[in-house]
């Protein structure tokens, strides 16, 4: 259909899909809205069901139609609902078009233009550190939203799927936040020379800046993290730990029996369950490595995190 893209999110977009994964998707509409869109969306749902793929979660955030209007125009403010924030953030952080990508690319590009062009401080000559604050703050807000929603889901669903969600929050959810931070930091780090940076970050050059940022966000979170950490992170051992922990986490999710155990655990069983303890240990290794890189002032990424990622 014209002006639409089928967009997938989550593990499929991160290229970490395994048979137990949900397929989070939306029919993104950027143009005329016509009643037929709902038939197309239903058909997509049916086709995915026929492929025996797990449908999206029950929140209704995915598995339906998304109009670009609210994504682009409602960033912050009362109309920026939880679902809108989620769709928008994930459209930037972990999404892939299936088939025609025109509407997908157009919406992402327009989002980036808004984040950049309305970030007045970014274009000031007196701002020598070129980190897009508007975007970074929205990524940070989304990360906290995910953490708060974790507690909300626990409240609503009587602990169903608690352990699996908990491990995902500690690992894959944290990874996309980290990749969002790194995309913002790379805008600054890419140009070591301050003069070159100041010449590049001018308002009339905002399309070039947006293209640069899009280039980072087009990578999968793991690829962006790998590229950024090996170039700017120092701490070789911690970088290796970071990725080996993530690899171990993916190993658990790919093991159907371990995944099922995590999915069905009740909170009172957590402390005694060896599968959960193993996953938790992996998440601690991941956190420890991330802390030692991102919260140390001895590397460029750490300095920027301390300066922009906390307060």
């Amino acid at each position, binding site marked *: 259909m014209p002006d639409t893209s089928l967009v997938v999110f989550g593990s499929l977009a991160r290229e970490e899909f395994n048979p137990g994964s949900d397929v989070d998707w939306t029919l993104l509409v950027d143009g005329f809205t016509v009643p037929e869109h709902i038939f197309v969306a239903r058909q997509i749902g049916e086709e995915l069901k026929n492929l025996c793929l797990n449908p999206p979660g029950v929140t209704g955030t995915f598995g339906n139609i998304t109009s670009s209007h609210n994504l682009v125009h409602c960033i912050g403010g009362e109309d920026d609902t939880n679902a809108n924030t989620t769709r928008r953030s994930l459209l930037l952080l972990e999404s892939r078009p299936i088939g025609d990508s025109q509407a997908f690319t157009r919406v992402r590009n327009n989002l980036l233009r808004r984040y950049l062009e309305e970030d007045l401080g970014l274009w000031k000559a007196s701002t020598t550190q070129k980190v897009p604050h508007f975007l970074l703050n929205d990524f940070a807000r989304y990360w906290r939203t995910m953490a708060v929603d974790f507690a909300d889901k626990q409240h609503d669903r009587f602990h169903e799927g608690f352990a699996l969600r908990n491990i995902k929050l500690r690992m894959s959810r944290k990874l996309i936040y980290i990749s969002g931070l790194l995309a913002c930091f790379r805008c600054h780090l890419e140009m070591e020379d301050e003069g070159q940076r100041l010449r590049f970050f001018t308002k009339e050059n905002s399309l070039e800046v947006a293209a*640069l940022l*899009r280039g980072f966000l087009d990578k999968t979170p793991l690829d962006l993290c790998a590229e950024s950490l090996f170039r700017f992170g120092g701490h070789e051992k911690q970088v290796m730990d970071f990725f080996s922990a993530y690899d171990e986490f993916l190993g658990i999710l790919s093991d159907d029996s371990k995944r099922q155990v995590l999915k069905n655990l009740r909170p009172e069983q957590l402390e005694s369950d060896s599968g959960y303890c193993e996953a938790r240990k992996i998440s601690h290794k991941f956190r420890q490595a991330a802390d030692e890189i991102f919260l140390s002032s001895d590397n460029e990424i750490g300095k920027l995190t301390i300066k922009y990622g906390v307060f």
Partner: protein
Amino acid sequence: MNRIGYSTGAIALGDFAKAITLLAEHNFQAIELSALRIEEVEPLIESLPRLDLGNYTYISFHAPSAFGEHEEEYLVKLLSQLPDSWPIVLHPDAIHRFDRWTAIAGRLAIENMDQRKNTGRSVRELQEIFKHLPNSRMCLDLGHARQIDSSMIEAYLLLKIFSSRIVQLHMSEVDTQSRHAVISRAAEMAFAQVSRFIPSSAAVILESRVNEREIDNEAEKVQAMLSLARVEWGPASLATH
């Protein structure tokens, strides 16, 4: 300074002689002779010796936007009769077999497509086309690029990545039905965002469907846009990405 002019199809659809007569009253340096239907090609080529094109320093020829596979070799043969210096604007989706175009590939200016097409719209799709036509040049249709990506980032990337190929631009509003129209204020603002990246050597051909009275007005709009400061692509700017 870019040479500016009109496509004959925009001035008088299917009637190149009338368009050339109307345009003769204005002072344009560029013109695109348009034969969007295959049956228009032969009469246009046959009438070339009689057409008064002496005032134009840039002339291009727009090949038909669609033709049958059985007509492809015949069309290439016809087009090869055109003067060597005239770029031949061609829609990539119209091509049936790339190898048939080899003889005139260096004279082709492949145009980026609008949203109705499923190829030749974006950088990625055009890179695939240029793999088959490595020596061909490009006609960048800014209206199409804006329709594909209203943020103009794709237009910027097309200008940047294909800068050395771009021999000509098309400018006009492209409406939701993909028809060429008079440039709106919104399109003017969008085009102005990337005008600094337009190679100064490229001719700018207006495709806006204008009436006689609007010819100069529309051209002045574009002229004003093009008078903004320019960036010439060089190794330093490319190295930043």
